């Protein structure tokens, strides 16, 4: 709990994992801003970050310092919240291996502040710890091997002196893993994989299995395909201190072409609960076994203690890329509910006996063949981190409503090059806007209201105790909606598109501030975002054409905006 002491009450940042429902990512307990007064919200500061890349992560507020990690090549900025104009206290730029730029611009690397230190991961595979006050490097460990396609693109979790992080690089055929480093020294404590033999994965006596065979991480793959099987842990990791468990999702299997990896492809596209001490797996839920559409299950989760069908239960809520909201008992791993929050046709509802969604045979994918109109499209229906408001009981999911044509081709693993084997064309779901903020009634398991957007939403949402929902669009509009009704109450046009979640904090003067990082780097998600040619319908995995209405004015680059009531 020492971490909370650094900040006034109500501060939320990317990870803490406490079980209090109030301390969830995406929810601010501050209630100064209300639907009545949010109309008067004004920008009070705007600061260029100095980077023209894709800013996917929010600023992290720790006490009176805001930490911003720019996209690759990274620079960590520490801003002084006390002074007007937010001057930079110190900045740190680690040495960057420029080859990492080939991993793409969809990273959401963000810093984590804890115990007077700041921890962050870099796209070129380093985990770095700095002193939060001075910016001096405490340790710098290279944990991901870029030459094998591994990268780090998610914020780490700091829990009990351990730094937990997982790799990305499913598109490059990197075998997924989650590792724990010592927060003091950066030494590797343990490392568990998403594919392979039980020992490497962490399947042992403590694993909640129901007569499962051994080494599913090998037997559910074509021979030796698990060695380049993907399943990276490229989303946020959550921690339940009381239970001593960390929760994370695993990414989609590699290659995207399913015929080269026949079988259920354990343990990709699913949710894990692991023990913090040694990473031993406690339970696993397969969300999209033998993932045909490169969806994965790495979307941000929420840990909630709330009532479920009459009784209080410890829940893990997982809005998945396959378009369903999964509700699990996070201690036992039991699946309580999986309902679709937008129209999909790749699956036909939950099979309660199997605990997985039924596939639609019309959307089967075969190597060498083309399947058209698959909804949802890669990379999934969830565009940004969902936010939960305990006040309204609604889960606010920034959604993408795109469908795709997928052509699967045979591919070869060449280290350092993408290992996908599929070409995509994408288009908006028929009859629907391509983006939406979906307000999902968690208790009733249905949609409460939807706010349509002209483009898919790529940034997370922020819900406040004052009854507002904030989110940004790729066109650069930061909006505030009424959390109960979804009415738009306030908007602000930023100079760059927004693909990061907003945050809210209480400043030194007691006012409630809302801050957001803007900057998409051209076409969001593409490292060469400014050099996309939409005459190719498969550019940027097909999304370039689907998002062709994205305005392409010269962007101002990365900007931090801070708003408050005057």
């Amino acid at each position: 709990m020492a971490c909370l002491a650094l900040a006034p009450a109500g501060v939320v940042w990317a990870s803490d994992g406490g079980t209090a429902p109030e301390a969830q990512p995406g929810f601010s307990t501050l209630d100064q801003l209300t639907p009545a007064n949010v109309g008067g919200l004004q920008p009070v500061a705007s600061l260029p970050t100095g980077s023209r890349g894709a800013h996917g992560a929010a600023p992290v507020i720790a006490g009176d310092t805001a930490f911003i990690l720019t996209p690759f090549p990274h620079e960590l900025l520490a801003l002084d919240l006390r002074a007007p104009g937010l001057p930079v206290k110190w900045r740190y730029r680690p040495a960057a291996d420029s080859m990492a730029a080939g991993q793409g611009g969809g990273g959401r690397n963000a810093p984590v502040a804890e115990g007077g230190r700041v921890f962050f991961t870099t796209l070129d595979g380093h985990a770095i710890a700095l002193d939060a006050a001075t910016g001096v490097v405490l340790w710098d460990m290279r944990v991901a091997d870029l030459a094998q396609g591994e990268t780090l693109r998610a914020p780490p979790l700091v829990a009990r002196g351990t730094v937990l992080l997982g790799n990305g690089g499913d598109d490059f055929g990197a075998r997924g893993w989650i590792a724990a480093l010592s927060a003091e020294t950066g030494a590797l404590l343990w490392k568990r994989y998403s594919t392979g033999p039980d020992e490497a994965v962490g399947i042992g006596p403590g694993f909640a299995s129901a007569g499962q065979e051994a080494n599913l991480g090998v037997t559910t793959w074509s021979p030796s395909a698990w060695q380049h099987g993907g399943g990276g842990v490229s989303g946020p990791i959550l921690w339940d201190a009381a239970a001593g468990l960390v929760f994370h999702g695993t990414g989609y299997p590699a290659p995207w072409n399913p015929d080269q990896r026949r079988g259920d492809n354990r343990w990709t596209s699913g949710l894990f609960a692991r023990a913090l001490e040694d990473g031993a797996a406690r339970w696993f839920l397969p969300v999209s076994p033998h993932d045909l559409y490169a969806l994965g299950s790495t979307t941000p989760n929420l840990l909630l203690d709330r009532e479920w069908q009459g009784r209080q239960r410890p829940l893990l809520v997982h809005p998945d890329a396959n378009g369903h909201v999964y509700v699990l008992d996070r201690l036992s791993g039991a699946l309580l509910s999986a309902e679709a929050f937008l129209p999909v046709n790749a699956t036909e509802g939950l099979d309660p006996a199997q605990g997985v969604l039924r596939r639609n045979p019309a959307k089967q994918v075969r190597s060498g063949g083309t399947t058209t109109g698959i909804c949802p499209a890669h990379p999934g229906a969830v565009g940004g981190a969902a936010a939960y408001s305990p006040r309204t009981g609604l889960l606010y999911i920034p959604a993408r409503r795109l469908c795709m044509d997928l052509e699967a081709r045979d591919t070869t693993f060449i280290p350092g090059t993408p290992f996908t084997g599929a070409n995509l064309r994408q288009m908006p779901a028929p009859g629907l806007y391509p983006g939406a903020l979906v307000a999902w009634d968690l208790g009733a398991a249905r949609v409460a209201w939807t706010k349509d957007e002209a483009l898919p939403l790529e940034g997370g949402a922020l819900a406040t105790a004052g009854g507002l929902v904030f989110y940004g669009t790729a066109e650069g509009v930061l909006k505030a909606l009424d959390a109960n009704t979804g009415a738009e109450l306030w908007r602000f046009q930023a100079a760059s598109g927004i693909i990061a979640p907003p945050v809210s904090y209480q400043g030194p003067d007691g006012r409630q501030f809302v801050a957001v990082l803007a900057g998409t780097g051209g076409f969001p998600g593409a490292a060469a975002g400014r050099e996309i040619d939409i005459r190719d319908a498969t550019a940027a995995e097909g999304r370039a054409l689907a998002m062709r209405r994205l305005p392409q004015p010269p962007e101002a680059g990365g900007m931090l905006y801070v708003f408050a009531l005057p």
Partner: protein
Amino acid sequence: MTAKARAATLILLALTLAACKREERATRLDPPVAEALDKVAVLPVGIGGRPPEVYPALGSPYRSNAYQLSQGKRLYEWFNCRGCHADGGGNTGPALLDGWWRYGPDAVSIFVSIRDGRPNGMPAFRDRLTTEQIWQLTGYIQSMGATAISVAAPSRSDRMQSRPAENRAPATFPAPR
């Protein structure tokens, strides 16, 4: 031989000797020639340079020979170029369709890019492709971003359609950003 017959023979001979370069299929290069093709002279900045001497001696085939271009197209798919560059539209790598070249449009620059890699994510393929294959890819990529329609350029693939075929779509330059 009558004058008419003589004229006819001469014309026929000329036609045969000027055998259509576009259609020639060299299925295998001699090893010394293949080795010599690697010897490009690159400018110190890494952009531009002089092709190897044997290249014009071969007739500069990689840009204008239909078979070489189709081989380049095959290699473009087989070596995962699509993962970063899509079908020329770009993804994590820049677009190759739009006639804008970070390191210049000439064949030597593109050859060096593929062979030695470039900063910001382009891997080096010198250990994964033969020199001839790299030249075939170079020629094909140039035809993707060409500004004039060429008869030798490949036509549409038997695949999911992503864009007009190389022989139908000259590059248009993107708006300045």
